[in-house]
């Protein structure tokens, strides 16, 4: 008690805490810390993207401070952007990325809703326990999980996926050596990586669907499928939409899966945008161009999020709706 609580009481008496506008002060620390760590790197990246930075010139100079002033890299204007935008590989990567966003998000949503329906079905016993189990993969580090899935999708006859195919009497598939098969394997892996989060959100949404609505529909003569279509789906739309937007952003920035699987291969055909940027920056040591690509990616994803946030009215809370 005593001192601490007296101090606290004093704090409580500070008038600004009662004032609404002053509440901005509660938000500022977070905003500030975030900006300090996020804004700076982005600005640095912007800087680099206008230079011909390569490891050799960026790191020339005596102190680490020189790195901050881009070493001896020279200002080249928009050249990096021009060369990026005129590179057919960029456009391939751009297209594949959006395709991946479209397919993987669709897959993730349908799959997760399906799983969520199963583990909330009232006939199923031990639902809660099952729900506890299926979110376990969220605890595994991504780099590890992806490496494991790389093994599962090995093109070798004895990769797990192929072994299962063979148990089922199919021919083995060269997963990572064929463009669309590797694309498929990216999707499956992404789905598995994302499902715990998506399922939790969907399950919570499903549990918030008023039971009466289902009963009303039942009495109205609707079967299971109609109820799903007319009651369940519309009721979980918003939370699921929200989850989809988050997961779409994750898909857009997928890096580990294509990189670990086959470096966006076979032969760069599935090189998602971030992998493309990474490769430009590191394999070819073009930091400037890599930065430009990264920034373009940020721009796209930013625009995409902005659209979604606007459209989905995600910034609105109940308090002001």
């Amino acid at each position: 008690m005593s001192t601490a609580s007296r101090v606290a009481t004093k704090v409580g008496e500070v008038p600004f805490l009662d004032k609404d506008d002053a509440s901005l002060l509660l938000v500022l620390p977070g905003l500030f810390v975030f900006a300090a760590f996020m804004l700076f790197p982005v600005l640095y990246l912007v800087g680099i993207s206008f230079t011909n930075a390569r490891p050799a010139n960026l790191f020339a100079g005596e102190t680490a401070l020189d790195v901050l002033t881009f070493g001896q890299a020279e200002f080249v204007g928009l050249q990096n952007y021009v060369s990026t935008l005129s590179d057919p590989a960029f456009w391939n990567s751009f297209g594949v990325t959006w395709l991946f966003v479209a397919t993987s998000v669709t897959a993730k949503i349908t799959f997760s809703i399906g799983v969520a329906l199963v583990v909330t079905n009232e006939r199923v016993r031990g639902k809660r326990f099952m729900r506890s189990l299926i979110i376990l993969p969220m605890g595994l580090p991504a780099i590890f999980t992806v490496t494991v899935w790389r093994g599962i999708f090995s093109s070798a006859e004895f990769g797990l996926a192929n072994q299962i195919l063979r148990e089922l009497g199919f021919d083995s598939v060269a997963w990572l050596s064929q463009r669309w098969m590797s694309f498929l394997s990216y999707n499956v892996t992404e789905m598995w990586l994302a499902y715990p989060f998506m399922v939790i959100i969907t399950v919570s949404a499903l549990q918030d669907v008023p039971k009466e609505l289902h009963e009303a529909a039942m009495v109205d003569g609707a079967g299971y499928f109609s109820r799903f279509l007319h009651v369940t789906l519309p009721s979980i739309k918003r939370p699921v939409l929200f989850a989809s937007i988050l997961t779409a952003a994750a898909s857009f920035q997928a890096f580990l899966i294509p990189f670990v699987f086959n470096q966006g291969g076979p032969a760069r055909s599935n090189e998602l945008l971030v992998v493309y940027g990474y490769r430009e920056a590191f394999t070819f040591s073009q930091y400037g161009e890599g930065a430009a690509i990264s920034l373009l990616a940020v721009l796209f994803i930013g625009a995409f999020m902005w659209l979604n946030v606007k459209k989905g009215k995600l910034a609105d809370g109940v308090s002001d709706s």
Partner: protein
Amino acid sequence: AGVQEQGEGTEASQSGDGSGDSTASGDADSTTESSGPAGTAKAWYSLPDTEIPLRKEALGMYNEASKHTIEGADISDLRKKTTSAIPANQGPKTFEWAHDFVGDYYQRGFIVDKSDSISVEMDQFTDAAQGAVQFDGATVGLPHSAETVALVYNTEMVDSAPSTVSEMKTVMEEYHDPQNGTYGLGYPFDPYFTSAWAQAFGGYIFDPEEDPQLGVNTDATAKGVKFALDNFAPYMPNDPTYGPQAAAFAEGNAPFAINGPWYLSTLNEKGVDYGVAKLPTPEGGEPNPFTGITMWYFSKAMSEDGPGTQAAMDFIEWYATNEDIALRNAKEQGAIPVLDSIATSDDLPENVQGFSEAVQQGVPMPTHPKMNAVWTPYGDALTKLFNGDMDVKPALDEAAKTIRSNWE
């Protein structure tokens, strides 16, 4: 009141504690004499956990015997770590890696020329090793072992190593039966592993001395690549990457593997009976694999003189020239010595001799920074070829084109 731990701590004594700045103590007086004050230096390496105990032992030996102290540390993703730490002046005095960083890192200024202050004779190393640690006339480190790929055979299936590819093919033919989980060969199909064949018929992948420097699409190289495709690819598991290829042999499901010394620990764990031999010869050619020379680099931090640098140099010289260590590394880890004195010695275990002979067959990987831009496009081409998506020549031409455009 106080609490004091009795006896030995249980936490495995850590590999190093990095908190002491290596140069802090000695920078003030910049003596260059070897009789200078005792120094402390950080040394980075990235080893499989099976090799770490031996390394720690070696460090212990050195620290015991010398006034200097070397703090070793096992780094995960050494390439990334050096790239970020060294420019920020946070790098170690020295780090250990194969020699393929030499050109790139030297150009980037991550490593420095210390040819003036080396006090050991360079010609006690094999020629290949001497060449590997030098770039543009600068000596940027000292070599301590070599590695390359050789033929590994399962002694339960094969009595003696085949000396020609066609002999080998007969055996592979016999065992290759994917439906039943057996294969002829486990062989990661990438530029480094296949270099022996690509360069077997007078071709070369990259050579700064040649014209053109880039050799991936010369006819001779194409012939070599085609040779590898025709003679090996059909007997391998479908996936050209390391893991599956390594598994096929390690589980006793293939008579042959082509792989490097690092593979032996896996084989020992799996309990496969194996022998190592140099690569079989193709008709009309001679296998000519890339070899890697593992070396201690003179990192940027060694550019300033001081006890720390003294310590690092002293340690590197000690390690590189220490026959005991080289032999133990050879015996326990299959590392091929690069000290002329023991490189071909009979003291070497049989298996290492196989690798050692293979090293004799090959050439060190190019150290030129341009080589960096070669690996990936060329590797992509090999993958395509392995998958049968393209013909040899067009695939290599395409790779060459990409590489050239990346050089610009």
